[in-house]
Structures are given as structure tokens and as C-alpha cells.
């Protein structure tokens, strides 16, 4: 069971985190593994914090929900405050560098990189922050391979935005490499 990686992507409503979760899960599947993706629904999701969860495994995935995450991504302060303590003590926290990281967060690694800024400034589209974030996660954890992650991204993004999104991924990788 330890072969399972549990990922929680958090932020606010319009940030495309569910799509990011789907892409992660799909890349795992393309790669021949198993994956489950889920999310919180409901009217409360409209305003407040939003989350998407992905479990990636080589084996059968029984319990489909993430309890404590191996990897936690937070793009907004509200989301970070809400979910920070749902990270495993030996987990990895990825946050946008604009955020204040609560003092009591326990993690094996905390990575604060300018995800939103990169999306806006380097790609020119705030919308692709989710893809940038995927790049960051990949580069950091290799939970899925770049090859399949790229495939999965291209499968899911709107026609005509392929290059943009590829670039976003690349910028994500770079954020880690350069860090």
C-alpha cells in the first residue's frame, strides 16, 4: 500500500484544479498505472476553497479518498490554511510563493515557487497556473513521467492552446530546476 501516492490540489474555484487532477490521473493511467480522482462539490465550492484529489498507484486502489496527502499543492492562502495540516508529516508541500506558510506546518519538504506569477508573466495567462503547478509537481516527485504527463495535458486542453500549455509545463519544471 505504500506504493500509493496521494495528492491533494487546493486553491480557489476557477483555478482549474479539478482539470489538473484529471490530467495527473490520466497520465498515471497512460503510464499503465492505476489512479482515482475525486473532488469536493457543492455550493460552498463556489466561493471558498476548492480541492481535487488524486491517488496514483501500481496496485488496486481501495479507499478512493485522500486522508493524509503525500503531496499537497496550495495556490491560495485560504486553501493553504484549511488544508495545511492534512499533509503527511513526511509529505511534500508545494505552494505559490506569495503565500504565508503557517508556522506549524510539518512536511519533509516545502517548496514555495511563483506559480501564479509565472503563469501570468511568462505564459501570459493566469488560467494555466494549474498546468504550471503540474510541471512543478512532476519535476519534484516524478510521480508520473514527463512523457505521459505531456500526453495527458495535450489530450485535455482546448484545441489551439497546446503550445501554451506545453510551455506552461516546461516553466513548471524550470521552477523546480532553477530553485
Amino acid at each position, binding site marked *: 500500500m505504500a506504493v500509493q501516492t496521494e495528492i491533494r490540489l487546493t486553491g480557489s474555484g476557477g483555478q482549474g484544479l479539478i482539470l489538473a487532477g484529471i490530467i495527473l490521473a490520466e497520465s498515471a493511467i497512460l503510464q499503465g498505472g492505476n489512479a482515482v480522482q475525486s473532488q469536493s462539490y457543492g*455550493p*460552498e465550492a*463556489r*466561493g471558498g476553497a476548492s480541492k481535487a484529489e488524486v491517488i496514483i498507484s501500481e496496485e488496486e486502489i481501495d479507499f478512493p479518498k485522500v486522508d493524509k496527502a503525500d503531496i499537497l499543492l496550495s495556490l491560495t492562502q485560504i486553501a493553504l490554511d484549511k488544508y495545511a495540516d492534512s499533509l503527511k508529516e513526511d509529505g511534500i508541500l508545494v505552494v505559490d510563493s506569495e503565500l504565508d506558510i503557517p508556522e506549524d506546518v510539518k512536511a519533509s519538504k516545502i517548496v514555495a515557487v511563483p506559480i501564479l506569477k509565472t503563469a501570468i508573466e511568462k505564459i501570459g495567462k493566469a488560467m494555466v497556473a494549474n498546468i504550471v503547478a503540474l510541471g512543478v509537481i512532476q519535476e519534484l516527485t516524478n510521480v508520473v513521467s514527463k512523457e505521459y504527463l505531456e500526453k495527458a495535458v495535450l489530450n485535455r486542453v482546448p484545441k489551439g492552446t497546446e503550445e501554451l500549455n506545453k510551455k506552461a509545463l516546461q516553466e513548471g519544471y524550470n521552477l523546480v530546476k532553477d530553485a
Partner: protein
Amino acid sequence: MASKLIKDYFRTDKLPHIWCPGCGHGILMRSVAQAIDNLGLDKDKVCIVSGIGCSSRAPGYMDFNTLHTTHGRALAFATGVKLARPELEVIVVTGDGDCAAIGGNHLIHAARRNINITTVVFNNNIYGMTGGQYSPTTPTNEFGTTAPYGNIDKPFDIPALAGAAGATYTARGTAYHAKQLTKLVEKGIKNKGFSLIEGISICPTYYGRKNKKGSAVDMMNWLKDNAVDIKVAEKLPKEKLEGKFLIGEFKNTTEPEYTEEYMKIIERFQKER
């Protein structure tokens, strides 16, 4: 702290409401409160009833006796409240789905009975709460998540339907024309009988997005540009009305009111004693 109207008539601790940025429901809800304020009604004697939907969340924010019922049934619950306690001013806040889809039967029957309830329909031409399915007021050919190839249904004209069913007061306003809407709701409340006021709302999140209507501002502009007051319309040539919709007062008549008629039966017995 909030504007006086909000402070006086809303449960300010429940704000901000759950509605999306730019959702028209907030504007309409304010108009309802404004109408109540204009009439100087006793808050303890006002009961606001709704069903289920984004629109039907309104009563939760309003500082009156408030009742959030099951989907479509607001008018049936409200009928019970009103008949049981006719001194209450009963106002139903509902959506196009709540009122005209699942709740259509209660609508036409409350109208038929001419029971003194004022119904304000927040019509956003879509089921907002469940994420953008077409409603009985979605225009033909437009899109909803369940009308992926364009809606083939005809939309209801809700005030006309309520009028044909027996409502004695019917009108239509919009979120853009919020002042007029307030007046229409006021007159609806004053009408001793069943009143239906349709308030055209905007749902930028689902209806807007699905139908490429642009931002909330764009949708407000659409309301501004396409609503024609019935008094103006009467003087316009037909061509000028193409694709437009009418706002204003459509029906305003007097007929025996249900709870009054019922009280007469009770009085007969009381006299006999």
C-alpha cells in the same frame, strides 16, 4: 455595518451570500426588501417562503419568518402558512425551475385560488444550483448542459401563465430595472390576492457561460437593451419589438381572495353560536 436597508432587513451575519460574483439574485433580493421597507410592513408579520435553488436561498439572508422548503413546493407550504394565519404577509421567492418546472402545478393552483401570496420568481433561464441544465424558461435554441444541441422546448411566459390560471396581479421586471421591480413587488404585495412578479435575473456562471453571453455586466446590458416597458411597447411598431421582451404590469384586477372567503365560512359558524 451595511446600508440601512440591508441592516434592517437582512441577517447581515450570513453575508456574503453564496451567490456567484455578478449573480443577479442579490439585486432582486434587495428589491424585495426595498418593497417591504417602502410598505413599512411589520417584520414579525412577514413570512418569506422558498423552494430549492440558488434563488431559493434568499430567505436564509432575510430577517423575517423564513421557510426554505423542498424543491418546487414553496407555494404549497406558503398556502398552508397563509391559510393558517392570514394576518401574515406571505411572500414566495422562487426560481424559474422551482416555480415553473417542478413547482408549476402549485403555481397555477395558488393563482387559481387567488390566495393573497406574492410570488417573486428570480428567473435566470436556467437551473443554476445544479449547474446549468435548461429550464422551462430557457429560450428555444439556447444551450444548457442537458441541451447540448440547443434547446428544442418553447419557454413559458410565466406571468401570462399565472394570469391565465387566475392570478389577479402579474408583472415582470429585471435585475437591471431594479427600481421598477421594487415598485412592481410593492404593488404585488398590496394586491389582495395572488400576485406574480417575474424578475429577470442573470446567471453569468452557467447560463451566461453556456450561451456566450459575456460577463455579468454584458448580461445587465442585454437586459437594459432588450426589455421594453409595456406602456412604451403599446406605442411601438411590431418590428421594433422583434426579439425584445416586455416589462411592467400585465394584469391588475380584483377578485375574491381565498383566505377572506374562508373566514366568511368560519364567521357563519361564529354567528350561529
